């Protein structure tokens, strides 16, 4: 591990110096020593050790499958073996006849008890009817058809084998490119074809850009493959129904309960307060745990029907078959207008997105990419014709880097292909076209505002980390050993804090816009500082970073701040967009924490002022776990006394003292509704940046290759906890490398998934990881209260870097995001042919 990081020294958080990047000044071969935990000013910016670790290290975390209730029944889904078929008969009688089987639920019952899920799409996608179990037809292998609940896990599965379902198979559609052919099988008759959504995005003046161009580089087809992040914990729930009040308590690991609620409530025809979501620890999410609402509805219906708690565990094969694949995307007929010196003027392309069988979060992928329309480059003339179609494959849903990753892969591929066609150095083409630090904040052709950053500076740092000058020598040495060495760059953006107004570009009827997040901070009766978040963390360390922000404002130790673990919608600490997704906690979550803590600090001073007999707030300061008079520090009121006075000893306080010491703050980022006609407006608040460099060594005889060196430079503005930030960078890198080399959800022509388990879906293991050097810059966001930027998703930079490195090593143009050994072997054949 090498780390290059001069930017994390000291310094509390606070309102940032807008725009200024902190340059990196030193390099260390040693481990970044975590800061010692002691009370001092400036918790923000320190690598404080995580508060959540102690329970997790002792096996004392509470994950969804750990939750048990007396008399609970275990749910098992009967799943479709066909990719596409009519259901002609369902008979559950044999299953229900077994001792210990509590009951079943069929698609027919679901259709009678619920409405179809609300559709985000405009027509034709708007017309599909999506229920929580298959009704009348199955549309992908693994789709839930019937649910069985029994006394034990094993028995539920036994009984599910006795459920008789007759199918009348239909031809399957697995290739999105054939979805609109006249004889293509049609998934959804209600939509009258497989087209779900289409929209033309055009900004600038394409005609003049192509007229001005010295050359037009044409790329007939690029393909971004299907994969997802495969969190190690699969989905699950334990659902209890309180018959007296008609309310469900849903213990689950869904990572965006606000979204699940607005999907489930209307479908189940109940108010949202009847759906109480509870989570503690979540075993990874990466976006893949947003769309479990169909399964949760089934659990709810069965908990009510059977009058007992219902427990559902999704197993690994179930997850691979049915849950949240990442968007597979094709780019066709790409034309790039360039000058001979490598100046990029603009491009036009046709994007074709494979949504799978249902629109569970889609077609939002049809606009989310537009947050990063030009990638990191200054071209001003861009046209993208976006089409999304349905296929007989698992539904796609957000996956780390959601929809932007696909588009950034495209822009990075274009850069490297253009550089190759023009015979230019990819480094120089990037530097020539990167948006410059002095252009920040930079408005993109479609009205997004890149807040800050120094892309060229980051690239220099990345090249230094990889020892760029040594690459030619290493290539020669590899050749001596019969190997081909290649190097590639991936430069990406992690846009965070969505403006949900962008959904109106998909469907102008939608009444969503802006964003929000909630935190409450209170002083309890014995002076305990209690923080409640609206988020549903899955390993991002929210308990720790929130405590750092609170401790800085209340001037106490992080150890004195208790951040509640998990999420409970009964805590009254959530808003419509609460959850942990889309790279936003460092902005939305921590800004809410900051707002609530500042309210609390003001209230403490107000209370102390009254207790001290009318001292104004300016004359008071918070210190040493209490509040004191600046001029006479002996006049000290500990937090414990504050909490006790307000909560249990409040007689005689002034009548007009407006203090509760229980402060709720809603952070609302500054957004406008985008212009729907022009598809123009600011779609996200912050843009963290990643520049990665990969070095690969290819065995030309087999196509097998190894990533032999790697550098990752990240800039996410002010870092509250650099160690946690670096952890996210590492995780995103590892996932990208897995996706680049091995991970793929590939189907055969009949719609059978060929990689339904970790044998064939090979995720990286310890021995697969290359040496890694990390570097960091800090370009604080001028738009956020703490100077932070959302981060954690990355932009799939590792995939782009590996593709570029393989292109460099083999000399063949890489047109697919997934390059297993076999494909690299074919590239070598092509290159030598």
């Amino acid at each position, binding site marked *: 591990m090498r780390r290059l990081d001069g930017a994390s020294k000291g310094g509390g958080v606070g309102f940032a110096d807008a725009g200024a990047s902190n340059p990196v000044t030193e390099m260390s071969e040693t481990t970044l020593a975590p800061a010692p935990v002691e009370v001092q000013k400036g918790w923000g910016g320190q690598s404080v050790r995580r508060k959540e670790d102690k329970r997790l290290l002792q096996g004392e975390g509470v994950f969804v499958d750990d939750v048990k209730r007396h008399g609970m029944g275990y749910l098992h889904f009967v799943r479709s*073996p066909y990719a596409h078929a009519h259901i002609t008969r369902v008979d559950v009688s044999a299953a229900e006849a077994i001792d210990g089987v509590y009951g079943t639920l069929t698609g027919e019952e679901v259709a009678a008890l619920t409405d179809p899920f609300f559709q985000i799409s405009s027509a034709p996608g708007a017309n599909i009817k999506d229920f929580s179990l298959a009704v009348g037809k199955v549309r992908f292998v693994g789709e839930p058809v019937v649910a069985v609940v029994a006394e034990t896990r094993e028995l539920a599965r036994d009984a599910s*084998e006795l459920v008789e379902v007759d199918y009348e198979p239909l031809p399957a559609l697995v290739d999105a490119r054939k979805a609109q052919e006249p004889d293509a099988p049609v998934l959804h008759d209600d939509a009258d074809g497989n087209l779900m959504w289409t929209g033309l995005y055009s900004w600038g003046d394409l005609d003049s850009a192509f007229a001005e161009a010295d050359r037009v580089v044409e790329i007939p087809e690029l393909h971004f493959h299907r994969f997802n992040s495969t969190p190690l914990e699969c989905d699950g729930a334990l659902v209890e129904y309180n018959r007296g009040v008609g309310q469900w308590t849903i213990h689950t690991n869904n990572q965006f309960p606000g979204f699940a609620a607005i999907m489930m409530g209307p479908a189940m025809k109940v108010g949202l307060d009847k759906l109480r979501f509870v989570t503690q620890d979540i075993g990874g999410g990466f976006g893949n745990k947003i769309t479990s609402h169909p399964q949760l509805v089934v659990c709810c219906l069965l908990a009510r029907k059977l009058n007992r708690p219902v427990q559902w565990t999704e197993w690994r*094969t179930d997850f691979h*078959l049915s849950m949240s694949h990442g968007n597979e995307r094709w780019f066709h007929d790409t034309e790039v207008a360039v000058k001979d010196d490598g100046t990029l003027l603009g491009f036009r392309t046709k994007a074709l997105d494979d949504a799978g069988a249902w629109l569970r979060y889609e077609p939002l992928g049809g606009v989310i990419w537009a947050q990063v329309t030009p990638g990191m480059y200054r071209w001003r003339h861009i046209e993208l014709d976006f089409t999304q179609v349905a296929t007989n494959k698992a539904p796609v849903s957000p996956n780390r880097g959601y929809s932007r990753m696909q588009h950034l892969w495209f822009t990075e591929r274009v850069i490297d292909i253009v550089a190759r066609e023009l015979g230019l150095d990819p480094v120089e083409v990037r530097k020539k076209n990167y948006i410059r630090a002095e252009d920040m904040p930079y408005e993109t052709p479609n009205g997004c505002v890149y807040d800050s950053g120094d892309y060229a500076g980051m690239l220099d740092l990345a090249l230094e980390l990889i020892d760029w000058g040594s690459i030619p020598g290493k290539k020669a040495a590899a050749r001596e050993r019969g190997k081909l060495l290649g190097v590639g760059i991936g430069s990406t953006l992690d846009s965070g804090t969505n403006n949900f107004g962008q959904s109106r570009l998909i469907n102008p009827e939608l009444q969503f816009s802006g964003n929000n997040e909630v935190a409450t901070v209170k002083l309890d009766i014995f002076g305990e500082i209690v923080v409640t978040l609206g988020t549903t963390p899955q390993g991002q360390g929210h308990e720790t970073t929130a405590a750092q922000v609170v401790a800085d404002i209340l001037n106490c130790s992080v150890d004195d701040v208790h951040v509640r673990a998990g999420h409970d919608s009964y805590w009254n600490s959530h808003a419509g967009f609460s959850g942990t997704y889309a790279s936003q906690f460092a902005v939305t979550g921590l800004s809410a924490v900051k707002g609530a803590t500042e309210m609390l600090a003001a209230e403490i001073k107000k209370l102390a002022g009254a207790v001290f007999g009318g001292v104004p707030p300016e004359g008071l300061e918070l210190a040493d776990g209490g509040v004191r008079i600046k001029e006479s520090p002996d006049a000290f009121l500990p937090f414990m006394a504050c909490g006790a006075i307000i909560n249990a000893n409040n007689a005689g306080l002034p009548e007009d003292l407006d203090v509760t010491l229980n402060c709720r703050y809603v952070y609302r980022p500054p957004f406008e509704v985008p212009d729907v006609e022009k598809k123009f407006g600011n779609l996200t608040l912050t843009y963290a940046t990643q520049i990665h460099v990969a070095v690969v060594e290819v065995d030309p005889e087999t196509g097998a290759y190894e990533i032999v060196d790697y550098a990752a430079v990240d800039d996410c503005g002010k870092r509250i906890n650099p160690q946690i930030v670096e952890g996210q960078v590492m995780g995103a890198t590892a996932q990208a490398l897995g996706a680049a080399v091995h991970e793929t959800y590939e189907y055969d022509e009949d719609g059978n998934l060929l990689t339904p388990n970790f044998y064939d879906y090979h995720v990286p293991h310890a021995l697969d990881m290359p040496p890694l050097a990390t570097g960091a810059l800090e370009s604080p966001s001028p738009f956020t209260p703490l100077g932070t930027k959302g981060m954690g998703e990355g932009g799939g930079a590792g995939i782009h870097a590996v593709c570029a490195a393989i292109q460099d090593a083999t000399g063949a143009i890489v047109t697919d995001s997934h390059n297993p050994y076999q494909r690299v072997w074919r590239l070598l054949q092509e290159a030598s042919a």
Partner: protein
Amino acid sequence: MNVSGERTFEAPRATVWQVMNDPASMAKTMPGVQSFDVHDDRHWTANVKIPLGLGGLKMKVDMEKVEEREPEFAKMAIKGQGVGAMMNMETSFTLSDADAGGTAMAWSAEVKILGPVGSMGQRVLQPIVNQQVQHVLAALDGQVQEAMGNSG
């Protein structure tokens, strides 16, 4: 998955045809047959337990003869339903007089395996199908020889 091949039997075409269309003979060629019912001359049902080293795979197999041109061509649709596995197969054979005497058979089968067995065993399905096919062909040889013996 498509498997196909050619094979020559040292027997006249009529004998081979007879064996191939006799449910009782065919039952003896299938792997792990536990029971065999003939519904009519076009529809048969077998309960089989296909021997795989790790344990047998039980299946109820319905066979329907969908096309027939005696004595040269027949086509069958076969549906297998087991717990955790479903099989759909369409198979056909064409008989002709072999140049060197005897009967030549060109056969092909389109096999689809669905369900957990299919997903778990994806990487071994083709070798397993091949190995079952070899078993069937060898048994068929035996049946033809037996028919020759009976008629001879």
